[in-house]
């Protein structure tokens, strides 16, 4: 019974996470290349929450972005396709739950 309650709550929180993910990604897109710390905070948060709420692909891709930022690649050419991939995964996840 406790496991059922936990599952139900995780599902609710997962749906809320997906609903807010678009805003998080828009905020990330709006950052300029001189704000790597702010970018890292966003992707770190996405990676943690996505994994916890059952969206491993989003979590892994967000972790990749985090690695790029740590390597000084925020705003560099390598970052854009990785961000686009994360956005695509988020879109697909939202469509899957609708």
């Amino acid at each position, binding site marked *: 019974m*406790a*496991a059922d*309650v*936990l599952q139900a*709550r*995780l599902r609710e*929180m997962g749906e*809320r*996470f997906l609903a807010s993910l678009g805003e998080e990604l828009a905020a990330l897109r709006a950052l300029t290349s001189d704000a790597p710390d702010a970018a890292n*905070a966003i992707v*770190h*948060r996405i*990676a*943690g*929450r*996505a*994994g*916890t*709420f059952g969206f491993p692909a989003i*979590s892994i891709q967000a*972790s990749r972005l*985090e690695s790029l930022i740590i390597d000084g690649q925020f705003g560099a050419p390598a970052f854009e396709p990785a961000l686009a991939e994360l956005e695509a995964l988020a879109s697909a996840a939202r469509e899957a739950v609708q």
Partner: protein
Amino acid sequence: MIPTLQNILYVEDDADIRQVTVMTLELVGCLSVKACASGAEAVAPDNDFRPDLLLLDVMMPEMDGPTTLAHLRRDQRFSAVPAMFFTATVRPEEVSRLQELGAIGVIGKPFDPQTLVEELRRKWDAHHGG
């Protein structure tokens, strides 16, 4: 004999992850959890919770997990309480670093809420010779 694990002082800055973890520990593990949103909150003088275990996220703003543990260790209330860390970086060198700080266990993030309690208890038992 392995001491009972009942009370956990948990520090995590992300509100959603904090909520999931507390739910998991309380509902599945039947544990009593005092959740703090920051290291500062954990070391506040009015924190009268007496934990069996400190459970700390590593990456937190202002006061990270290792710094929080250092502060807790200087406080008589928590100086001898075993600690575990949550970290997104579970590379061997990071695990070694946290163990050298005194951690009895390191749990990778993101964690699986369904197996968290089992993993926590396994590390607790292993530390106490179980």
